[in-house]
């Protein structure tokens, strides 16, 4: 377990973008699971 070190600010910015964008991935997965399970679409 160790700190992640970025060599450039561009790398760090990409990591930050990924970090703040993860919520959408989680939400898409959750909606897919729900729709597969119940066979209905959940309103976005």
């Amino acid at each position: 377990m160790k700190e992640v070190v970025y060599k450039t600010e561009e790398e760090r910015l990409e990591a930050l973008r990924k970090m703040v964008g993860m919520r959408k991935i989680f939400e898409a997965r959750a909606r897919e699971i729900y729709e597969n399970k119940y066979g209905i679409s959940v309103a976005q």
Partner: protein
Amino acid sequence: MINLSVNAINLRAPYKVEQTGDASFMFETKQGVVYSVGFMKDVSFFSEGVYQFYLINLSSKTIGTDKNISETVRVVIEEFFAHKEVVMLYICDTSDMRQESRDRLFRIWFHTYEKNGLYSLHNEGMVIDNVHYFSSVLLRRDHPMFIKVLSAFHNFIDEHNQG
């Protein structure tokens, strides 16, 4: 990926929780609102043990106060922290008014956790692509790498903010 016990959660949660992944769950409230709650591994600033926390209302409905929702979520979070070597990361996008309101709720919850003395809460603000975000980490005070994790978190964001 961390594995949380749905059985342990359902022993104490007011709403019946269904496991949809190692660390993700769904529950439906008495008003028919479906929530997804869980954690996703995040390696942005530390190589292991950090998970982003999510609570998402999958229904289009908005509801009034329902204490059983926060109680159910509290039980899920406590099951997460049954593992000593984990860190909870929460990101809030302030461009969304609903997110901002949700963030206020989480901050109240997290401060409550902090007050009980078992957990430590740390916040950072940042601007990415002209959007302002709040980020918070919550971890147990007896986390074996407490100082290193916090140092990594603050370095990650402070160096961006100073850049």
